[in-house]
């Protein structure tokens, strides 16, 4: 263990959340819960990034009263990356949900294992 685990508690939480999401994505049989797991996983990464940009005692990177010294603001780069990332995760969620609807209308179940069993039974 390194020296900074307690100082990095936010990152530790994000790692735990990431793994919860990951486990959900791997183990849940219900597709909707899988998708929620995916969203949790993505949010965890964004939390990690946002923690990385944070500097204690500084404010958000919006210029106030024309002060443009580095000492005043936090690092703006992670925020920008997270903004991009959120869009990606929304798009992916919409795609996955529409796939779910399609699958449900065809197989009338949300259980991926059951679907693959049905598939193997019916088709060679």
């Amino acid at each position, binding site marked *: 263990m390194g020296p900074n685990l307690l100082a990095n508690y936010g990152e530790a939480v994000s790692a735990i959340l990431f793994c919860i999401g990951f486990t959900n994505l791997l183990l849940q049989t219900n597709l909707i819960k899988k998708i929620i797991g995916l969203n949790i996983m993505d949010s965890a990464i964004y939390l990690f990034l946002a923690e990385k940009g944070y500097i204690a005692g500084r404010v*958000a990177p919006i210029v106030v009263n024309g002060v443009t010294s580095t000492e005043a603001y936090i690092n703006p780069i992670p925020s920008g990356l997270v903004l991009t990332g959120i869009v990606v995760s929304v798009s992916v969620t919409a795609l996955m949900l529409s796939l779910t609807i399609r699958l449900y209308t065809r197989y009338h179940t949300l259980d991926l294992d059951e679907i693959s069993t049905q598939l193997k039974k019916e088709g060679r």
Partner: protein
Amino acid sequence: MTAFQIILMGLLIICAVSVSFSKNLLNAILIYMSFSLVMSMLWICLESPDLAITEAAVGAGITSVLFFVTLKKIRAIESTEPEKKEEPKDE
């Protein structure tokens, strides 16, 4: 402020775990919604208002609405009560 952050993070973990174990899909989605709201509060604490506004509009608003429509579409919601009244939250 640190204590507040720690409480929020604890809430995040509780939400994530309870999503995994909730039996009812509607509950899972509602919990996910609160997860997003907590996350956006946390981002305010981390001095990233841009992210907070986006997460509130997207995570708690749009994503949840899409989840609800999906649930409705697959007839998991039996009653005709629409859950979409939560939307104005993204203000």
